[in-house]
């Protein structure tokens, strides 16, 4: 047992901190930290700066730009990125479709897509959920019918984030009416400019217009855009989702939010006394800090025993990280509302201190954290089965 970071690990953390804070523009990072919306350009700028340093896709295979970092390094990289308010390299590209192509795509696909994905020259969005299949993802109904050298896709995807910015979409589609519904699913890459694709934004309760419905009406997709084997898409999706779950814990984000909340509490007064001196609020914050620290150590335990970084297969432990990570992030949104008090109420135009404006929208928006990426109920089912054997 060596329960402290090594010298090298500490040096790496310092390097990451310097890079993220010095080389990613402050204007972009502040937007993240303050809960404001980032433009497409912001996201592209930050992503490409990281890629220029070779830090956009560290968990990929080395030949495609990966860094062969230890799991601890990968953790430190995320932790520093999140605490600095750097928007992560586009997750749809980097955490989702990229690893699937790298692991299951053919050589032509790798050459065509991976460098472009790594540099965000191509922007991918995700076509998994459908109106009728949320938690029960395998019940999806979008159909891809083979027609010569093409698939013809018909159906509807929903909950597609940032489709408005996307060049391509990766989709789960039904290619066979197999007995087990999981067995007839394939993983397709589709150009968003294909005739027959339309999309429509869905406004979320925080007022944002980040998510979309995407409709497919006889969309012809070249068969070469099938990743891996036909009807094996479910396996690739599970691989993808387990990658997503770990990163969803976002411990660095919560750390930074808590520090910020504590700083802001000094600006607010109740009864003439700074809120930062109110024992009730301090204890409420401290209670969240305790859980966050416990979760961080839990992540480190998982990470330190994983010599292969995030490239290891699905891990039911990641479900624990997903559940608690989302709960803690949600708790921080309530703490921020506690700090800003009644000034979480105004919406438009903003009224009160500038830091109050994002409090309620973030509280509303982050309810999604316990819903998407496999709802927390689904995660509990996974743990009950895979860890407890129930």
């Amino acid at each position, binding site marked *: 047992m060596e329960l402290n970071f090594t010298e090298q690990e500490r040096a790496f953390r310092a390097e990451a901190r310097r890079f993220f804070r010095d080389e990613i523009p402050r204007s972009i990072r502040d937007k993240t930290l303050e809960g404001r919306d980032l433009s497409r350009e912001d996201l592209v700028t930050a992503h490409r700066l990281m890629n220029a340093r070779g830090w956009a896709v560290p968990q990929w295979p080395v030949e495609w730009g990966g860094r062969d970092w230890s799991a601890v390094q990968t953790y430190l990289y995320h932790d520093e990125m999140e605490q600095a308010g750097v928007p992560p390299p586009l997750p749809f590209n980097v955490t989702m479709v990229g690893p699937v192509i790298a692991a299951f795509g053919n050589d032509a696909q790798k050459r065509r897509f991976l460098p472009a994905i790594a540099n965000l020259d191509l922007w991918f969005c995700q076509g998994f959920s459908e109106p009728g299949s949320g*938690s029960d993802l395998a*019940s999806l109904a979008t159909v891809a019918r083979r027609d010569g050298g093409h698939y013809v896709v018909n159906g509807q995807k929903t909950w597609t984030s940032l489709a408005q910015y996307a060049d391509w979409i990766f989709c789960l589609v039904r290619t066979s009416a197999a007995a087990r519904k999981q067995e007839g699913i394939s993983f397709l890459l589709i150009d968003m400019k294909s005739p027959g694709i339309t999309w429509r934004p869905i406004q979320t309760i925080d007022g944002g217009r980040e998510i979309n419905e995407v409709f497919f009406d006889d969309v012809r997709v070249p068969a070469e855009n099938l990743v891996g084997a036909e009807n094996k898409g479910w396996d690739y999706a599970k691989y993808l989702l387990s990658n997503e779950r770990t990163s969803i814990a976002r411990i660095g984000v919560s750390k930074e939010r808590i520090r910020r909340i504590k700083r802001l509490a000094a600006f607010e007064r109740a009864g003439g006394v700074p809120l930062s001196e109110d024992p*009730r609020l301090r204890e*409420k914050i401290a209670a969240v800090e305790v859980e966050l620290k416990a979760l961080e150590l839990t992540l480190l335990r998982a990470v330190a025993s994983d010599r292969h970084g995030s490239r290891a297969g699905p891990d039911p432990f990641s479900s624990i990280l997903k559940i608690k990570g989302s709960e803690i992030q949600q708790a921080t949104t309530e703490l921020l*509302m506690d700090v800003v008090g009644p000034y979480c109420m105004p919406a438009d*135009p903003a009224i009160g201190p500038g830091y109050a404006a994002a409090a309620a929208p973030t509280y509303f928006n982050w309810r999604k954290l316990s819903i*998407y990426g496999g709802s927390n109920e689904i995660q509990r089912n996974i743990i009950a089965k895979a860890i407890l054997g129930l």
Partner: protein
Amino acid sequence: MNFDPSDDQRLLRDSIDRLIALESDMAHRRRGAALPDGWSRELWEKFAALGFLGLPFAEADGGIGGGPAETMIVMEALGRGLVLEPYFATVVLGGACLRLGAPAALRAELVPRIAAGSLLLAFGWTERQSRYDPVDVTTTARRDGGSWILNGAKSLVMHGDVADKIIVTARVAGGPRERAGLGVFLVEGASAGLRRTAYRSQDGIGAAEITLEDVRVDAQFVLGEPGNDAALIERVLDEAIAARCAEAVGVMAAMQRLTVDHLKTRRQFGRPIGDFQALQHRAVDQLIALELARSMALLAAMMVDAPDAAERRRTIAAAKVQIGRSGRRIGEEAIQLHGGIGMTMEYEVGHYFKRMTLIDRSFGDADWQLAALARAGGLFVDDDGD
């Protein structure tokens, strides 16, 4: 003891329910929200025509003579319908100020106009530094001959954007956060020196920041007894909280119903998700939270008129705590059990969730009211007879 509504109360409930069902579904709300005021003057006229706007006022003043129970019935329906119109600001909050603080002549002048729908009120009692403390007032009022001159700023004034007259608290004497020295003034919206910054709240309700620069208020528009109005202000706010509790029950009941409906109709894994026991038990906990909240809203209505102000304050604080806690739990679970669809503006439940969140954060959130209750000794004090 009898919790059943009287025949008159049943009629009132049917009447408001009918109006809400017809005029405040999602499509109507969306249309109302798109209007310049963010709500519908047309619907307001219907409120007037059906007698709701005069409800809490004495018949002698031109009202209907309803009490807290009647207000509770209406407010619960307005919550269920997520009504955007300024009923709460004008009739409940403004109305309470007038009923409890205005001289008879002023009541006789204004109540009929409120009842007719031609007068909108707002009550400005918070300031930038005050959070939820009604005696933390720095706006000043100084006497100038027969009238008063007001200076300062009131913040987060619900429906202050549209109000024809704005009732504000101001300090005529005393230092910061002193109970003594407060006054309540009815300010003409068009007064010289009054400026408003209008905004919309997260739940779509309009409001305003208001600044007062040498605003003159004539003697006949003074409510209560300047310098001695803390008790009046607290009484008005407790009455308002009781009404908001009832509104919250309407909101929660709607979320609970929507959730159960969703559990029955949404199918995943080949069956309604309401078949899953873990979700059933959470739906049960929603129901329990709703029933506890409903009970406390009833108690709050019972206590509005209580002769003992300290007991009233404690009980109404407790009601607000329960409402806040039940509301947050029901709301968060409603969104979670709905899944993605609950996060969208196209579906109803998210709108209720936002209204509920703002109800909790207004008039003292659950933590604030709990602290106030604890400071006051809690609910079960000495041998209090029950």
